[in-house]
Each structure stands twice: as C-alpha cells, then as structure tokens.
C-alpha cells in the first residue's frame, strides 16, 4: 500500500490541501463572526472578514510549515532511511557513487519504469517507494494535525470583543519582516556555507599554501596554489578596466555636460542595453569574433617582428583564447556600469558650482576638469570600484574566452585562468562534497566573495556619504 502512496504528487496535493484548508477556515471564521447576536454584538471590534482571516491564518501557517519542511527535507529523509537499511556491502561504496546510484533509484521509482534484471536494484526501488509513501503520508497527516490544532485554538478565541484585525495585521507584519529577513538569511547562508566548506578544505591544505602557492592543478594532481588564478583574475579585470574606465567616464561626461536632451534620450538607453545583454552572449561574441581576431593580430605582429629582424622567436603567445580577448569583451560589458553611475553623480553636482566656474571665464572642459570632476570624484571612484567588483566576479566571458591554464604571464595574448573559471571547472559534472578538489572551489568562492564584498562596501559607503553631501 505504501508503495502506491509513494507516487503521490506531493507538490500539487500540498498546494490543494493548503488552499482548501485556508479557504475553509476563512469561511468558518467569518460565518461564526457574522452570527454574533445579543447584547454582546454591540461590542464587535473587527469585521467578520478579519475573524475569517484570523482563523485561516492559524490553520494555514502550521500546515505551511509542515509542507515547506517536507519540500526541503523530505527527499533527504527518505534517502537517509534507505541508506541505513541497505545491506552492509553497500556501505563500502564511496559517497559519490552511492549518490549516483540513489539518483538512479529515485528516477526509476518516480517513473516506475524499471524493467531490467537487477533484482537488488528493483528491491531497493520498491523499498524507496515504500519509505517515500510513509514519509508522504506522515507529512500530510502532520499538516492536517497542525492545521486542526490551529483551527480549534483560533476558533475558540472568536468572541464579539476579539480584536481580530489587530491580530491579523500583527501576523502580516511578522510575515513582511520574515520576507525582509530572507535577505539576511541569504547572506548568512552564503557566508556559512562558504566558510564551512572552506574550513574543511583548509584542514587538508594549509591556508598559506593555498593563498601564495604558485602551482594550481586541481583537476589532475592535488596542487592548490591559487596565486596564478588571482593573477589571471587581476590581469583580466585590469584589461577590462583599462577599456571601461576611460570609455565609461568620458561617455558619462559627454552625456551629462555636452549632449542635448535628445541625444541623451537616445544614447543613454542604448548604453543600458549593453548592461542587459546576458554575459553568455558576450562570451560567445568573445569566442567567435574577438579571440580569433586577437590571435591573428598577434600572429601578424610575431611574423612582422621576426621578418624585420627585431626578434628571433615569436614574441607573443597568440593562443586561441586569451586574456586580452576576455578582458576586452568584459570591458565592453562593464562600460554601462561605469557610465550610468558616474552620470548620476555628475548630474548631482549642483549647477551653482558650474555657474561659478563659467563666471570666472572657464571653458566647459576646464569646468568639468577642475570643478565638476573633483566634486564628483568620490562617486566616480565608487562607480569604478563597483565595476571592478563586477569584472572580478564575472564568469561566463572568462569561462568561454580566457582559457583553463593556470599560469602567471604578462603576455596579454596568452591564455590565463581566473577564480571563476576554476570554480565552474571544479563544480561542473558529478561532484563529491568530500574531496579537496570540490572543496577548493568553495575556498576560491570565499576569496571571491570577500574581495567583492570589500569593494562593494567601500563603494556603497562612499556613494551614501556623497549623496548626503549634496542632498
């Protein structure tokens, strides 16, 4: 019987159950409040609807908690029970393979289509379904129980003088607060998971070896010196900023100081398009157009130098993927981040400052250079910092156009690798959470998070201070 129950579509069932419980409870509460009569009815505090909401709230919330708990923990509960029942020889299987095996079991169980000859597998699949049936049934039972208890308790409180509206509003306010707190929970989750996995990594690999080691070879041998990755990240971000900082800044200056409203109205949205294009598209562009052109340019420079006798060996590496290609395209991507924020801060500089400069006989460019830019400098620096943080954390462009080789090379046409490229390389495909290889990705992630956090915090603080100054 439990096997059949294992096929229950829990998602839809729980949704329907929650909806039914809530609406039923609402009507019960409302009808009860509508029937108030006698002398007490004159003291009614809240309208009947609020009594309905109150009962519905107390019925819905316990059931919702059970449903969410089942949704998040149900599968792992079933699996851990199944693993504890497996025959002893299964326990020798390494974690990843067991996970893959269990994935196959759950897939076969869900589709109910296993027709092969492996009797053990079939038996495990059946047992999996049974356990799942039990868990599902108890989740539904628990949800109903919670709902009933809440319903009964709430109904008993409905009397004419009951301040149902205040209670409901307090409940809604709590919900609003919890939603806002999810942002905190996300940060805590990020920091906790990164720290936890990184500490496990540093228990095996010394911290300083990771930070200052110069050999990175996580895929094949266990060499975890991340310095080449930091170098690659720095190099590509530098190239990107060499493009984005002048272009973005000058574009912002032109748009805010020189351009008429019509030009501004056209150019600004077009620049914003650059920020809206998915990064994977930039990556494809880098791979398809930019990297090959840079390679042929590098080859041309090599042959020209050799034929003119200036060098005897090729000067540039001229790889098919290169730091320059990735950096160039990333620079284009980052332009709007610089230009739009700089534009905002330049616009926020009070007109009186400009007028004063013009009155002294300054030309427009002198006004910009000596008055507007110094006044807007903190904001501009903040926008550059945010852009750097964006460039460091950018993933798809470098994954597609920077390469996989960890090395320290100042040649921009050589392929370099970055922190984000290695995180993707380490965590794509089947991963086991116990090997240093996987854990190193979290250590890299921690470094990435810490660095970008520092940049962001400084930038946000500067922007805030700056806004206060001219507001």
């Amino acid at each position, binding site marked *: 019987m439990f096997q059949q129950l294992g096929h229950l579509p829990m998602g839809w069932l729980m949704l329907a159950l929650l909806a039914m419980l809530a609406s039923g409870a609402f009507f019960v509460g409302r009808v009860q409040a509508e029937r108030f009569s006698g002398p007490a009815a004159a003291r009614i505090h809240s309208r009947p609807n609020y009594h309905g909401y109150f009962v519905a709230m107390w019925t819905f919330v316990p059931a919702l908690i059970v449903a969410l708990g089942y949704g998040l923990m149900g599968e792992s509960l079933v699996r851990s029970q199944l693993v504890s029942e497996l025959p002893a020889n299964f326990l020798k299987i390494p974690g990843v393979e067991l996970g893959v095996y269990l994935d196959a079991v759950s897939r076969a169980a869900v589709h109910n289509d296993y027709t092969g000859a492996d009797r053990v597998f079939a038996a495990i699949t059946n047992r999996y379904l049974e356990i799942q049936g039990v868990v599902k049934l108890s989740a539904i039972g628990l949800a109903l129980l919670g709902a009933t208890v809440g319903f009964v308790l709430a109904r008993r409180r409905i009397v004419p003088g009951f301040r149902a509206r205040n209670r409901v509003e307090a409940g809604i306010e709590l919900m609003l607060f919890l939603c806002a707190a999810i*942002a905190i929970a996300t940060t805590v989750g990020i920091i906790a998971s990164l720290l936890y996995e990184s500490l496990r990594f540093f228990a095996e690999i010394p911290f300083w070896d990771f930070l200052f080691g110069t050999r990175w070879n996580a895929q094949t041998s266990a060499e975890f010196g991340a310095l080449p990755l930091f170098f690659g990240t720095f190099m590509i971000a530098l190239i990107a900023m060499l493009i984005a900082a002048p272009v973005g800044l000058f574009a912002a200056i032109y748009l805010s100081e020189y351009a008429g409203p019509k030009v501004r109205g056209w150019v600004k949205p077009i620049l914003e398009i650059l920020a*809206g294009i998915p990064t*994977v598209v930039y*990556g494809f562009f880098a791979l398809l157009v930019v990297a090959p052109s840079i390679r042929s340019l590098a080859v041309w420079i090599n042959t020209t130098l050799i034929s003119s006798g200036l060098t005897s060996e090729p000067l540039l590496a001229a790889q098919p993927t290169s730091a320059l290609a990735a950096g160039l395209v990333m620079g284009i991507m980052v332009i709007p981040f610089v230009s739009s924020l700089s534009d905002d801060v330049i616009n926020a500089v009070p007109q009186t400052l400009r007028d004063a400069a013009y009155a002294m006989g300054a030309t*427009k460019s002198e006004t910009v250079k000596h008055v507007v830019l110094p006044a807007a400098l903190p904001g501009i620096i903040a926008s550059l910092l945010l852009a750097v943080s964006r460039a460091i954390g950018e993933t798809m462009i470098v994954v597609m156009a920077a390469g996989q080789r960890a090395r320290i090379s100042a040649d921009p046409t050589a392929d370099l690798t970055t922190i984000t490229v290695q995180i*993707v390389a380490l965590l794509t495909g089947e991963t086991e959470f116990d090997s240093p290889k996987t854990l190193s990705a979290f250590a890299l992630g921690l470094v990435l998070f810490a660095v970008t956090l520092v940049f962001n915090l400084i930038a*946000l603080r500067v922007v805030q201070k700056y806004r206060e100054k001219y507001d």
Partner: protein
Amino acid sequence: MTDVVQGPFRNEKALRRLKKRRAADVRFRTYGLSAIAFALLALSLLVASIGFQAVSAATYHVVRFDVVLDPQVIAPDGEDTPADISRNVDGFYSLLRSDLLETFPQAADDRLSRLRLGDLVTRLAVLPVARTVAENPTRIGRSMTITVPLNDDLDLYLKGAVSKDARVHIGEIASVSETTQNEVSLSGPSAFRGLEAMISTLRAEDGDAVDARSVLLTSGSSTGRVTHLETGAAHVTMLTGSADAFRGARPVARIIALPETERNVSDQQIAWTLALKEMGRISRVPHFSLLTNTDSTYPEIAGALAAIVGSLLTMLVTAFIAIPVGIFASIYLEEFAPRNRLTEIIEVNINNLAAVPSIVFGLLGAAVFLGFFGLPRSAPLVGGLVLALMTLPTIIIASRAALKSVPPSIRAAALGVGASKMQSVFHHVLPLAGPGILTGAILGMARALGETAPLLLIGMVAFVADVPSSPTDEATALPVLIFSWSTNAERAWEPMTAAVIVILLMFLVTMNGIVVLLRRRFERRW
C-alpha cells in the same frame, strides 16, 4: 579693424592662450564623443556578428525521399507494435539508404562509399518519421514522402560557409572519350580557357597551394573531378552520373577553396549532394526544428525546445518566490520598519547582495540546496530557488523606489478616514505603486533569464534529451544551452548557437518592451 584693444587679456600671448584653451575644449568634447562612438560600435559589432551567424541558421537543407514503407523492414514479425516501430530507427534509416543506393548505384561497390553515402543524412533524423508511422500504422506498406535534414557539413557547404568556391563556366565539350572505367578525357578547342585563366589568377594569389584544391566539373546531375588539365582537354574521374552527360554540354567548374583533407565533406559527397540538388530533391526550408526539437549531438536535428521549457519552468519558480517575497520585504522596509540597527543592517545587506557575483549564489545553491537539503540536481526547482535569491535584492530595491514615489498625502488621507496602517498600505499605497513594482519585477526576471553561471554549478548543464514536465525533472536552460553549444567543436554549431541567442534576446526584448509600455501607460507624476 586693425586697432586691437590692448590689455592684459587682449595681447597676442593671451589670444594664443585662449586659442589653446578652446582647442583643449574641442579635444575634450571629441574624447567624449569617441567614447560613446566606441561603445555604440562595440554594441553594433556584437549584434551584427551574432545576427549574421543566426541568419545562416534560419534556413537549412532537407532531402526528400519517396520510399515504400516495406513492412519487412520497418515492422518485421514480432517487432510490429507501435512502440517497436517508433524505436525502429535502423529500419527506417535502411529505407533511406537503399533509396540513396538506387540513386547512386556506383556507390554500392565498396563499403566505404556506402558508408559515406549513408552519411548524407543522420541515422537519428528518421526518428520523427518512425513516430509518425507508429501513430498511423495504416501507412505501412504504402509509399511515403519523407523529408529529413541534410548532414550538417554538407548543409554548410551548400550555404557556402565551408569554403568559397570559385565557379567558372566551361565552353562546349566537343568530344568525350573513356580511357578506363571511370576515367574520362574531355576535349573542346577552347572549352577550358576560362578555367585555366582562373587557376592562374588563384596561383598568383595563393601560390602552389592551388594544386591541392579540387576542381569539380558538373553537368546536370553528373559530376567529375579534374585530375589533369591541358590546353583544350581535361582528364576527369567521374564521381556520379555518366560521362555521356558532358557530351556537347557546357559544364560548370567549381574550384573548392579548401583541399579535401582540410574539410569534413569529401569531393564524392559534394558530387552526390549536387546531384540530389539537381534532381530537385534537396531544398532549403525554414529551420523550424530549432524550436520544436530537443537537444542532440547532431547539429542538423538539434533544437532548443527542452531548454526553452526548462527556462520557463525555472522562471516560474523564480517568479513565484522572488516577486512576492521581494514585494513584501520592500513593504516592510519602506512602511513598517522601525529606524533601528537591525533595519540598517538589512538595508546595507540588501544593497550588498545586489552586487555579489552571481556565481557565489551558485555556490550557495550547490552547498545548501544540493548538499544540505539533498534536492535533486539539474532541476528547475533548485535553479529557480537560486535565481530567486539572486534577483531578490534587485526586486526589493526597485519596489522600494516605487513605494517611495507614492506621496505621503495618500497615506495620510487613508489614515485620516480611519484606516489602519496595514489597510492604508495594502488598499492605497500598494495599488498606486503597482506599475513601478511590476516593472522592477520584470527587469529582475529578465536578468535571471539571462543568467548562466549559477545554473552551471547546480548541474543544469547536463545533456537533456526530453522536454521537462515538472520543476523536479532534469532540465537545462536557454543560456546554458548557448554555453554548451558554443563549446561544441563542429562548425555547424556556431550558427545554431547564434540562433538560440537570438531566441533568448527576443524573450528579453519582449520583457523590456513590456516594461517600456507599462512605464508609458502608467507613469504618473504627483
């Protein structure tokens, strides 16, 4: 006019200085203009290069076969249930192969030629035909017209993407004499002058590399490869058709720019393809299968349907979580939060989260949702959760701005007629802020739709051949499909990837268009 007013600012030195300052002003302005020009140029280059590639994938070549659905082949005894027929790819494929062998009987002689001939269409391309026949068993035994995509390399060749052929019209061939079985000698007094001239032009450009290139002579559906060219005569190895087709004809010569060893299509295959095209059996049609097929290892039958559905499911999960939570959080922060330390921390925190690299959210998903909670890998559910956490700050910031723009007089009026704080917010402020919140939500969703990196870390990069039907099935998403196709080695994937990018960009343009419309329609100044 000669008497210049003298003074400290009017002397020659000062005027020179002024000129210099004005020149600096012009220069500065030019820098600004060129910065904008650079950005616009980069954008148009990006759009143009992708659009150009995508256009070539908008159509593709299909081959038509008129075959009899022989029950012995497609539904032999014991394997004739609909399920068996729909799986009988080999049977259907052998129908097509024998049809090709009938068309080109010379290829039947050796095994390699038979294989090469079979390569004109992919084995798996007959799968939809097999399914159609399995659904309509009455068709078995009758004749049927089957159109299947041409091999991707030949498709690219016909589109001119493999090599730019130089075409030369040959003069009238006066006589044809067969030397050995397949070797033919064609002669005509001035027939090959154009060809010789073209070859010497090419030799002047590229040197002796010309000698490695194939020269194919085509007349009707017969094609031969030139082995030796002399004044007024050419020795030709016949590839398809008969040498008689050249007698008295004016054939066309193609000099294929890449030597045979450097391309994936052989001269023989090109000859067959040209012959089929001459017979009218190859036609160029719109590439709808890009939207209706699922992923495949063969570019000619691959499509983005599974990824589109996967993206939609992921977005559904994201929208269900991020939009309500984002709106509620912004209402709390804007309307209810007391000004204290905790609120301040939440605010700083949200601004920070908006700038955290997206890949960090992928790490969070991998560690917490996959590792800790044990949710299924590669599922839109997990992808949606991760993207929801990622877009949440964006939506909160936009919603707060929308709520802030509702003037306090609205709140005061509601409170003044006896509404509670909660009623004033939900009955009055929220509806007025609605359009602004909606635009913020759509922009957040557009960002989530284009996001790739977090999805890679939670395993949505797996090869998915089936259309996912629920958020817990294995799935992939459009941007991830773009990534995995772009890393494939075969040339044919490039235009296909560009075409998928165009599909993704169309979704994004639509979402942004809705935002613009909403702003136009509902923007209100208080």
